């Protein structure tokens, strides 16, 4: 069950909108399809679903239609055609009063330029949604203060927005949305007006809050790094169409087309790619119950000097080196118990970013072991693999993309970009 589902959504400004939709529906580029029509298409055939509790980022340059798209999600703009379902309720057919109720109960929004009311105090702004809902003043104040506490602004409650810096104002904007208590949060370029350091800080704050609150967030941005940092999944928009939907990694490693590839070319991949996406299948894994002869054979077969050993439930225990295998053979042991050491390889988790792997790789005598969330050996990363992952991640040549274990290769999406992207 998705928190929010959008199906074949169109927004045409201008006249003869129906004709425009018909022409765009077969996938023709925007400029061609609308030639000669007194209409502009802001959003073309958008289809996607947002899962409860995820941060879904819509990314695109200005004019790509992302701001129009987000305004259709809470009915500030009426779609030309298509469907928007919030918690299963079809929003496009709601009467104004029902639409207002849905906004009060289900969806709140954070705006690019904060959109605080300059004549109201910070607390009055934060409690605005509750005022609309008709709550009594003391309760409003209490919940507004609670929201301000979450964003760390309680001591500014009785100031006017004017007294606050840009970053603080947007935290008030966030508090206002949080105080509304809705499950869905729309964030329209919410951090774009802030300078980079502040932006980073408030991104961190959002991620912290999100870990605690688990809202469903639809976040609009033109900043790819922001998209990659915040988004559980990212939809890339171009000329009104969604050209790709996927995780940051999927978009980096398998760009749907040249446009996306170019877009992601200058991202710092080491921060996005994770251990899971570069790791390799471990060749020499033995159960701790295996005998030393088996271990010796494994070493001979793979011509390496170390065997990875797992215990009950495939949990990773450590390694057995050549020397230890020889010792075990000499001592006529029946299994490897007692010969497993843990100082030969470093272990990391699957979601460790590649940037954080360098130190471990450098200090690990043998390929780094990657463990899944239950402590099982998921893969290994030899130094050379890390280096080649970096090499293929250099800008300019997004072409040589190797399918990684974590990101199964999706179908070729170039052809029918928008349509197949419902993910």
């Amino acid at each position, binding site marked *: 069950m998705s928190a929010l589902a959008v199906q074949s959504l169109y927004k045409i400004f201008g006249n003869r909108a129906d004709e425009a939709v018909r022409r765009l529906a077969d996938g023709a580029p925007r400029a061609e399809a609308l030639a000669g029509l007194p209409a502009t298409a802001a959003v073309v055939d958008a289809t996607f679903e947002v899962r409860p509790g995820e941060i879904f980022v819509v990314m695109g340059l200005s004019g790509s239609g992302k701001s129009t798209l987000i*305004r259709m999600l*809470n009915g*500030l703009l009426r779609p030309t055609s298509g469907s928007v379902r919030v918690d299963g309720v079809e929003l496009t057919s709601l009467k104004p*009063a029902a639409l*207002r*109720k*849905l*906004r*009060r*109960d289900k*969806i*709140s*929004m954070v*705006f*690019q*330029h904060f*959109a*605080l*009311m*300059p*004549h109201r105090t910070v607390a009055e702004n934060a409690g*605005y*949604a509750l005022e*609309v*809902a008709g709550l009594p003043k003391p309760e409003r104040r209490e919940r507004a203060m609670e929201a301000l506490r979450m964003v760390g602004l309680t001591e500014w409650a009785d100031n*006017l*927005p*004017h007294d606050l810096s840009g970053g603080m104002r947007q935290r008030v904007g966030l508090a*206002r949305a949080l105080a*509304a208590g809705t499950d869905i949060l*729309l964030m329209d370029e919410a951090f774009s007006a802030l300078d980079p350091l502040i932006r980073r800080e408030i991104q961190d704050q959002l991620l912290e809050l999100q870990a605690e609150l688990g809202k469903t967030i639809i976040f609009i941005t033109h900043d790819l790094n922001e998209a990659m940092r915040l988004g559980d999944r990212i939809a890339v928009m171009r000329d009104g169409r969604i050209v790709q939907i996927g995780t940051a990694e999927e978009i980096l490693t398998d760009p749907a087309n040249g446009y996306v590839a170019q877009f992601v070319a200058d991202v710092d991949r080491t921060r996005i790619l994770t251990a899971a996406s570069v790791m390799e299948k471990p060749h020499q894994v033995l159960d701790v119950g295996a005998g030393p002869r088996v271990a010796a054979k494994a070493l001979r077969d793979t011509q390496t000097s170390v065997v990875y050993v797992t215990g009950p439930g495939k949990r990773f225990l450590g390694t057995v080196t050549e020397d230890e295998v020889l010792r075990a053979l000499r001592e006529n042991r029946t299994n490897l118990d007692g010969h497993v050491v843990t100082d030969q390889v470093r272990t990391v988790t699957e979601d460790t970013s590649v940037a954080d792997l360098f130190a471990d790789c450098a200090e690990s005598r043998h390929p780094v072991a990657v463990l899944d969330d239950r402590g099982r050996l998921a893969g290994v990363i030899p130094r050379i693999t890390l280096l080649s992952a970096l090499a293929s991640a250099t800008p300019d040549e997004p072409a040589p993309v190797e399918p990684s274990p974590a990101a199964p290769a999706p179908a070729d999406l170039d052809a029918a970009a928008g349509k197949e992207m419902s993910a």
Partner: protein
Amino acid sequence: MSLREFPLDAALPRVPLGEWVESAVDWATRTLGPVFDAITAGVEALVGPLEQLLNGVPAVAVVAVLAGLGWWLRGWKFALGAAVGLLLVAGMPYWEETMSTLAQVLVASVLALLLAVPLGIFVAENKRASAVARPVLDFMQTMPAFVYLIPALFFFGIGTVPGVLATVVFSMPPGVRLTELGLRQVDKEIVQAAESFGAPPWMVLLRTKVPLALPTIMTGVNQVIMLSLSMVVIAGMVGAGGLGDVIIFSLSQVEVGSGFEGGIAVVVLAVVLDRLTDSLGDRFPSARAQRLAREAA
């Protein structure tokens, strides 16, 4: 040789616009008589008591009240200036006329604003109404002010009422325009924010748009009062009384002295009312917030 001698010009149809207007006014006078009588009674009931009140108290008391307002709204310097100016007027022979002009201006302005602000809100919310209102407002503003006096005379006879009503018509347009402008200039994102939290239209209007538009609306209020004052003098021609009478009389008798005195009284009244209403707009929290924002920028 008149233009009419050109054959082509002579062929142009004659448009008896003046006759049409005349017959329309005739018709209105005959059929709407009771309505006009009621309006006359209403306006008189407003202006009369106010005039009596202003003239029933000592001039010094009026000066003290206005100067006190000035002190509260603008500070002691303005209060002092206003007091000096008003005392000068009180020292001239036309204090009584000044007060009846003040009464007429206040009544006309309040009536004009009662019509203009709601109308301004209506046209700001409604594009089609705005398109209709624009040429009508242009007409009202550019039609020479004297012309309003003629039908007003027909409908309401000689005296204060036609003067006040002609003044209302003449001074309304800036009130409508600036209200509309102020509401349209409110930051769209803030309006969307209010809507996005489910606020109904009346709430968006009264608690968000109007407070934020208030500085501009107050400029409209100020303009309405200023135009009223200029029109009230013209209304002296239909016997509205007050300073208008003084000035028209001086004009017809070529009396420089009394004409100047009447004129000075108008100027003092205008300056005091202008500054008072101008700073009234700054008293609202939204205006304060916006001023702070401007200073910071």
